[in-house]
């Protein structure tokens, strides 16, 4: 699977913008050689420069550019060479209870990164800390760093609204607005002031969300009249209409029937050709099917192991991960 992934990565060209472009610490390049085996980098994750010399020199400070502490590092391959998101010693507290404990991991550009683990282990919390949705929870407090293209998103000069315009989100329960299908998809465009060619963009988004055939003739009808699976694809269309770089999905299929679920799964794989998708799921088959990388969280908000999906599912380093995956607990 990783060959496939890296091939896909190499073929894709995207303009990468940073949240605070003026402060960009690196040159984004689309020409990076993505054929470097990610697993080769595991051993010296602390000194990624060794590995990066193999690659384009200008990137030595970019992907994998943020040092990862040697302690609290999960098993597996917590560093990747084309990281878009890098969590470093990330803690999240709700009041006095700690929901995430020293999370260190990288999320590579494009492809699907799955977060799995038993419920209450902090998967949603981690996802929400990537686009700062935790800011909206009064009692939530974040410590540590989370870099997006090398910029710590918890720096004072990062506007969470600007961040969320680059990192879209799809929620566990479909949450369309009580508006028409068209207005639902157009909402993001309108709030972001991207209101030229709205019609075309809405159409494209619905097309990409594999929903257009079902709703072509009823764009003026309420989004609430759709079935659950259609609503979720509508929410995905809404999230991608504004063309974010990363899409966060929190158990997007957990409220859906098997047919709708498999449609969402196909869609996720499709989207991963263009976007970086981070998906939370408690369904291990789903993670195995659709993801390229898998992070296993276990109780107490610990990230136990992070690696290529097939490595995690075939030969995990951690016994607890193995027990979890084989259904011995969780």
């Amino acid at each position, binding site marked *: 699977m990783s060959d496939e992934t890296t091939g896909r990565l190499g073929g894709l060209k995207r303009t990468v913008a940073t949240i605070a472009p003026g402060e960009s610490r690196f040159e984004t390049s689309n020409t990076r050689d993505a054929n470097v085996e990610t697993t080769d980098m595991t051993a010296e994750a602390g000194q990624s420069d060794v590995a990066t010399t193999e690659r384009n020199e200008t990137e030595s400070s970019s992907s994998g550019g943020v040092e990862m502490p040697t302690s609290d590092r999960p098993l597996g391959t917590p560093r990747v060479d084309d990281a878009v998101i890098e969590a470093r010693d990330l803690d999240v507290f709700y009041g006095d209870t700690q929901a995430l404990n020293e999370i260190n991991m990288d999320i590579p550009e494009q492809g699907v990164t799955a977060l799995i683990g038993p419920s209450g282990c902090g998967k949603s919390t981690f996802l929400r800390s990537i686009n700062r*949705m935790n800011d909206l929870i009064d009692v939530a407090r974040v410590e540590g760093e989370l870099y997006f293209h090398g910029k710590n998103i918890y720096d004072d000069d990062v506007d969470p609204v600007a961040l969320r315009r680059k990192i879209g989100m799809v*929620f566990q329960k479909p*949450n369309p*607005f*009580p508006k028409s299908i068209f207005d639902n998809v157009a909402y993001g465009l309108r709030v972001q002031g991207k209101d030229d060619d709205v019609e075309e963009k809405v159409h494209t988004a619905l097309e990409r969300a594999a929903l257009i055939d079902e709703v072509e003739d009823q764009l003026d009808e309420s989004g609430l009249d759709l079935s659950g699976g259609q609503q979720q694809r509508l929410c995905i269309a*809404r999230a991608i209409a504004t063309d974010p770089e990363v899409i966060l999905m929190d158990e997007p299929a957990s409220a859906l029937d098997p047919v709708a679920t498999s449609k969402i799964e196909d869609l996720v794989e499709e989207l991963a050709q263009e976007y970086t998708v981070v998906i939370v799921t408690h369904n291990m088959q789903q993670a195995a099917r659709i993801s390229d990388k898998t992070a296993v969280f276990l109780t107490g908000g610990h990230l136990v192991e992070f690696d290529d999906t097939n490595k995690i599912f075939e030969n995990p380093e951690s016994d607890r991960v193995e027990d979890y995956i084989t259904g011995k607990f969780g």
Partner: protein
Amino acid sequence: MSTETENPFTEGTDDIERKRTIGRVFVGVCFGSAMVGVAALVILLADVIIEAWGWLTWDFLLYPPTQSPDNFLGGIRGAGIYPAIVGSIFLIALTAVFTLFLGVGAAIYLEEYAPENRLTSFIEANIANLAGVPSIVYGLLGLAVFVRGAQLGAVLLAGALTLTLLILPIVIVSTQEALRAVPDSQRNAAYGVGATQWQVTRDVVLPRALPGIMTGTILSLSRAIGETAPLIMVGAATTMLTAPDGLMSPFSAMPMQIFDWAARPQTEFHHAAAAGIVVLLTILLLMNLCAILIRNKYDPRS
């Protein structure tokens, strides 16, 4: 029913029957309680309507009151409640504008923006308590602050501001409830695509809460339109011969006029009071009907 097979369900039927009887008695008592309220309302309405029968005419709605009771029944010139109707409508319209701005504004701040700290909960607890303060106290406050303090005198504006104070706590509390009923998933959906808090409030929260806000506000206003005590305190006239024509004009209101007529010895005036009550109740019921229609129209389940 066949007699050959023995009925296997005979055991304990006496006990079941006894419990059922207790249940019937309980339902009977509950039904009785419900009927007391309905009966009281029917008797009240019937009494007032019979008393007003024949006295509630177009002239009654369109003429000012007179000192001579004869005029109320097709005398030389008509007599009625016109200035008080106009006074009440102005009063409620002004109060509606003030409460919408102050009440809804305060509720949005408290619910959507205020940090969750002791001060906020202290303020919220006090607002809830204010909703229970007797209306005459608001009248005293209006007298002290608007009529005397701000030197407005006993004018329409002072009356409207006083009524605004009176219903403000109820409007704030009901608006907060309407805002709280907007599911967080809707807010998250908007934040998730990069909306600012103002955009979330304007596009998602307010439209969704609007029916609840309107219902609460209209019901509060229909309480205000029947209030007499605060208007007495701010010095509204019991009888006005001309309708108010501006914010600073002296005014009367329907409850004041009804109170004045009911207190007079001549029976003609009592009939006029009954006719006035019918008009007041009609306006009140129409307002409540509006509230119900709004609530049903925007019910998210429909």
